[in-house]
């Protein structure tokens, strides 16, 4: 949203449904992708997250980056709450299988991009150690800075950076084996 975020947020606080729709469309895809990696019921957690965002929207102060950090912090807490409530129930494996075995054409970057399935990549990221997967999703997908990610996951920025690098290296190792890349 860039520089328009402040205006859009102000309108959403005033109850402008269209403005809230802009924020929702901008954030919801990344929120769902993040939750698909860290939670078995991403849709439920996303719904709870948005409800809490709406409830606290009037009191929020900050720019777009701060808003994203705030929203993903809420999402992480809601996912943790869901995890605690699921502790007594059997877990459901993350089902993200799909086109991981799709043939890949590496002639051009565009063709390669098309061949890489979003679901396959999410499945691959979810196979990483949880701390690495979460850091990668927050850094790459949510677009948060290391300092914000560190605050969200309760680690130092240095630890976040190390986990992110390890996660990326592991992804690069796994991707050819999983058929996500050549």
């Amino acid at each position, binding site marked *: 949203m860039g520089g328009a975020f402040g205006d859009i947020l102000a309108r959403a606080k005033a109850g402008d449904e269209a403005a*809230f729709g802009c924020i929702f469309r901008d954030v919801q895809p990344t929120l769902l992708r993040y939750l698909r990696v860290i939670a078995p019921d991403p849709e439920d957690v*996303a*719904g709870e997250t948005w*409800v809490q965002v709406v409830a606290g929207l009037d009191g929020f102060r900050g720019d777009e980056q701060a808003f994203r950090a705030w929203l993903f912090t809420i999402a992480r807490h809601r996912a943790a709450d869901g995890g605690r409530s699921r502790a007594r129930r059997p877990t459901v494996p993350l089902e993200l299988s799909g086109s991981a075995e799709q043939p890949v054409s590496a002639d051009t970057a565009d063709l390669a991009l098309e061949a890489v399935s979003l679901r396959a990549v999410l499945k691959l990221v979810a196979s990483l150690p949880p701390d690495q997967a979460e850091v990668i999703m927050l850094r790459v997908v949510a677009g948060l800075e290391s300092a914000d990610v560190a605050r969200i996951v309760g680690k130092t920025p240095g630890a976040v950076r190390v986990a992110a690098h390890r996660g*990326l290296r592991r992804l690069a190792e796994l991707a050819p084996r999983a058929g996500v890349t050549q």
Partner: protein
Amino acid sequence: MSGPDAMHDEMPGFFPGRPGGERDEPLLDMIFDRRPLPPGAPPEIHDLARMLAVVAGPAEPEELAGEASALAAFTRLASPVGISPAALRPARRWLSGRPARAKLPLAAALVTAAAGLGSIAAAYVDVLPGPIQKVAHVTVGAPLPESGRPQGPPAVTNVQASATHALGNSSAQPTPSVARTSIPSSANHQQSRPEQSGRPASGAPTCTPRPSPPPTQAKPRPSPSPLVPGAPGWNPRSPGAPGCLGIPAKNAVPRTTR
């Protein structure tokens, strides 16, 4: 960087375990910062960047499927008077687009409660079948059924005992009931229910309000209940009536909308 593969040569160990494996960090930071990679970067890093670009790519249609529900919830919840926890619970379900798992038990409980209240109300207006009305007479102090109503002074009789037995509570003490107090005569009872001849034999309760009995038929109760016809706050439509579960429409809490 003397050629296309210079950077690859400079960082021969992209993967852990390879010599110089830590020197890929600047490239990895470039991926995180979404900066373009140099052409000489290893192909593995280019693959990695493409893969992560997919994850950070534009929304897929199904990812925005909940937008309408989210906007509806926003309109409902974004109220100047604030948001109550009770309003948040259903909104979470609307946003998630999934059926509430706890709705079925709740609905069953409401139906049971409504049926119970309806039965009590029906007993008080004496529309139940005779045996059931006798049981209600003993247990909740409802009037005796017309056919079993004594003409003379009332007394605790075998009706009470049989009703207690029928409830499987043979050890229960006799319930203080209308039989110990004043029971109107049969004539008065008939007079108080002019529509009785036209009522259905099944005695099914309806939402139609019945007139309150005259004061002479008022039966003393230890604790007045709003479920008692004629009692303060009694809503003749509420017990057991669909959509009338004790909250008159005019008293219903209005939804906050913009």
